[in-house]
């Protein structure tokens, strides 16, 4: 089946393209990118003015909750949420029930993803069996089954020794270790960023140093082992400083920041809704200086990836006292509007860089196909609408869970359509009927 | 705004009431004066002074705040809450004849509340009601025993009593609009 997407603005940073180009899709792959391509029997779609075609967005930090926590999300609902958010692929975390530390669980996830047939799913396996932090998981088996990285996300790798071994071992398979950086004794039973707002509300604090200590540990071990180390959901300025210095020294470290950490601060704990459990996540929303450090790192290239840490929780689980609520918010359907509105339209970064953060770099870090519109690459394309007014409505999210602090926010920039392997899996009917898409 | 009673008139009226009290009760043996806040209080004090001038005896005097006994509490969804002030009755009311003093008698609800409050303090031998102005329009079967002036009014008028101790002048004024 041949499709010709004609006349849209194509932004493909990996190939240095930014301009009006046609894209010919054939057999699920990108056949050609060029100007005035002949129709030659293809279905023609004239791309409306103002839209941008880019390599499909990839969210490398998503909790799909299946197996075991299907009341929060399933692979089917999670991938539906992903494509509505403009993502053609997601990497899913292993802290399911049971933990993804075996080929069995990995295969289940992949089977569900194939059945849903929406976004591509790349499982990330566990570092240790059961994520208990004692014995290494069968990492080779995980890789063979389809995992692209390992992590004990939810908590840090239990000991420095175990992290060292994981880096060495996974390095053999070319897989990065993704780390939830944290010192458990400094975290204690904290629930919010240690600062003025937590003090004011009587919430136990988690200092920024708690995360940064974990980052420092990781970069030193990455240096020792020569393996690839990826800092998950970074939030503290001390962490940014550590990553910057490590990169200058040539250490193989990469890092990601979630949209809530470059948008919100701990002020959200008290306002507009005091003790809103949709402002509770780990790492927590931090003070303005940390949020600004994240923006700075995004602008100056220290940050490699924007990843949402999409963490669905059932409404009942979040409708409790702040201490008791689980950490996490959903993010797949708010990432693009927040990135456009707070990064591109605010002048922090150009559009090209946003696409690097959301597509080119995640593909590179995980060594997965995608991130480019090169000829022969899978036809994973996101059609963006940079000037679309978007109103976030929690009730209308396609995710099974609606735990977002952004309900009611008016933002500029959204998703027009999402194409995976040449097939249109999501269309925003308001923008164009997607005729023929 | 017509002045219905000037300072002079008020003074003479209170003097007359003081004499009536002494006459009707045949002396002041077991009497006590209790003024209903706010303006009933200075009126009660003045009456006590007059009675002392007449008989040479001290009549115990107290102040009663009836806010917590009002029947219209909690019924207004909006609007300022009446402010609660201290009640001071530094004597036992058991077995006494209590002379309740208020500035204006209107619907009678304030007096009803004052009666309830007093009964919670003890068991008086009798309660008599003294008012400076009776403006009619009773909603409860309440009658004053001593009236300074009977003043027929329309419902859309209001009676304002001003006293030196609170308002820096003595006068009773009839105003259009509002409730008093």
């Amino acid at each position, binding site marked *: 089946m041949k499709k010709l997407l004609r006349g849209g603005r194509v932004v493909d940073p990996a190939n240095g393209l930014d301009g009006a180009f046609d894209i010919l899709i054939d057999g699920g792959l990108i056949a050609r990118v060029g100007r005035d391509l002949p129709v030659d029997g293809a279905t023609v779609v004239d791309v409306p003015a103002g839209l941008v075609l880019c390599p499909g967005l990839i969210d490398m930090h998503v909790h799909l909750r299946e197996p075991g926590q299907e009341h929060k999300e399933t692979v089917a609902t999670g991938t539906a949420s992903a494509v509505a958010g403009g993502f053609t692929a997601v990497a899913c975390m292993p802290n399911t029930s049971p933990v993804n530390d075996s080929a069995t669980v990995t295969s289940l996830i992949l089977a569900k993803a194939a059945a849903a047939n929406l976004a591509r799913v790349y499982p990330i396996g566990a570092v240790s069996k059961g994520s208990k932090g004692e014995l290494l998981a069968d990492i080779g088996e995980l890789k063979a089954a389809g995992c692209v990285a390992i992590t004990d996300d939810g908590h840090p790798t239990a000991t420095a020794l175990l992290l060292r071994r994981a880096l060495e071992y996974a390095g053999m398979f070319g897989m990065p270790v993704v780390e939830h950086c944290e010192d458990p004794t400094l975290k204690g039973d904290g629930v919010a960023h*240690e*600062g*003025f707002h*937590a*003090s*004011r*509300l*009587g*919430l*136990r*604090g988690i200092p920024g140093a708690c995360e940064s200590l974990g980052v420092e540990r990781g970069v030193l071990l990455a240096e020792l082992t020569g393996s690839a180390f990826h800092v998950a959901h970074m939030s503290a300025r001390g962490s940014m400083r550590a990553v910057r210095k490590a990169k200058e020294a040539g250490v193989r470290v990469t890092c990601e920041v979630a949209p809530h950490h470059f948008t919100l601060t701990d002020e959200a704990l008290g306002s507009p*809704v*005091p*003790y809103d459990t949709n402002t509770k996540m780990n790492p927590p929303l931090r003070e303005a200086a940390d949020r600004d450090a994240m923006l700075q790192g995004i602008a100056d290239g220290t940050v490699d990836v924007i990843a949402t840490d999409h963490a669905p929780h059932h409404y*009942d689980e979040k*409708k*409790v*006292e*702040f*201490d*008791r609520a689980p950490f996490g918010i959903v993010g797949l359907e708010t990432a693009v509007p927040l990135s456009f509105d707070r990064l591109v339209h605010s002048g922090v970064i150009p559009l090209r860089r946003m696409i690097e953060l959301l597509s080119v770099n995640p593909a590179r870090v995980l060594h997965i196909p995608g991130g480019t519109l090169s000829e022969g690459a899978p036809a994973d394309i996101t059609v963006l609408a940079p000037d679309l007014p978007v109103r976030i409505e929690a009730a209308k999210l396609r995710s099974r869970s609606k735990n977002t602090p952004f309900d009611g926010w008016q933002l500029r920039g959204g998703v027009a359509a999402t194409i995976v392997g040449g097939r249109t899996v999501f269309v925003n009917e308001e923008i164009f009927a997607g005729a023929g898409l | 705004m017509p002045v219905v009673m000037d300072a002079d008139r008020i003074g003479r009226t209170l003097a007359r009431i003081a004499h009536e009290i002494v006459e009707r009760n045949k002396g002041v043996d077991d009497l006590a004066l209790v003024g209903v806040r*706010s*303006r009933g*209080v200075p009126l009660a004090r003045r009456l006590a002074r007059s009675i002392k001038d007449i008989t040479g005896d001290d009549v115990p005097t107290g*102040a009663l*705040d009836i*806010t*917590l*006994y009002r029947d219209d*509490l*909690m*019924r*207004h*969804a*909006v*609007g*300022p*809450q*009446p*402010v*609660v*002030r*201290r*009640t*001071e009755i530094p004597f036992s009311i058991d077995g006494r004849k209590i002379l309740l003093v208020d500035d204006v008698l209107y619907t009678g609800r304030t007096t009803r509340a004052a009666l*309830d*409050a007093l009964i*919670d*303090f*003890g068991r008086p031998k009798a309660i008599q009601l003294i008012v400076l102005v009776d403006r009619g329009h009773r909603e409860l079967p309440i009658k004053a025993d001593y009236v300074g002036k009977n003043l027929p009014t329309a419902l859309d008028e209001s009676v304002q009593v001003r006293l030196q*101790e*609170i308002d820096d002048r003595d006068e009773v004024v009839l105003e259009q609009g509002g409730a008093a």
Partner: protein
Amino acid sequence: MNVQELDTRPAVTSLRRKDLLGIADLSPEEIALVLDTAVAMKEVGSRPIKKVPALRGKTVVNLFFEPSTRTRTSFEIAEKRLSADTLSVAIGTSSVVKGETLADTALNLEAMSPDMIVLRHFSSGACHLLSRICRSSIVNAGDGTNEHPTQALLDALTIRERKGRLRGLKVGIIGDLLHSRVLRSNIHLLTKMGAEVWVCGPPTLIPAEIARFGVRVTSDVHEAVADADVVMLLRIQLERMEGAYFPSLREYFQVFGMTEARLRLAKPDVMIMHPGPMNRGVEIASEVADGPYSVILDQVANGVAVRMAVLYLLAGGAEHEEAA
């Protein structure tokens, strides 16, 4: 003290709110209103019949997730003096183990249409949660380490009775600042009313950025006590040693304990306040505890009066918004 005879109108005459969640939400005028109303309420407790019909027919539920005889009985007495119908529910740990959430417990109660719920809970923000889901007025009787507003109000009443004012007084608060909800409420109230507040404790027990609350911070107890009009001592929980906050109770007493010698640095008519019960030899030396400065019994009587004032002011005259 200063009994108002004249009909002077106070700056505000009602608490225009559905709940009392904390002192943080109150203006200085509202605080003054509560204190003035409490003075009038205190008189009710001195009558032979200690009852007024102001809350007749209203139902108040005392929902206590943390045990507390003192605060609970104080609220109960206050409610009964206002002629309200009261119901006290003490949630044992077994209910929590059964898994019923706070929200569900409260909604079950709502079925009985209580007019007010007085809540004490171990989680900060529990009252804010109930306020969002219940139509009833919520009164915070202590939530986690957030606030204990009626305690601060009764402390303020006690101070105002002795000293005639709050503005310009130096108040030193010493102890476990980090885990104290009484501290936070007192800081809010005293700073709003113009007092000079000093907080003192080991650095390990000082909340982050507390200076931004408008208080002076020190770990030197002499600084905190120097020329103080009021000294408030917060309880040291014996378990805190396990969190490595300080090495031992003995050492805490050496460095921070209120002794005669230290108290002499304060003003001669200094007041000592303590939410009780006291740990002698930890926060306070025995001879000081038994000395003439302490005002604990006044605090108990004022507690009932302040709670009556709060219940009365919340129950009527406020615009009750629909619960979300």
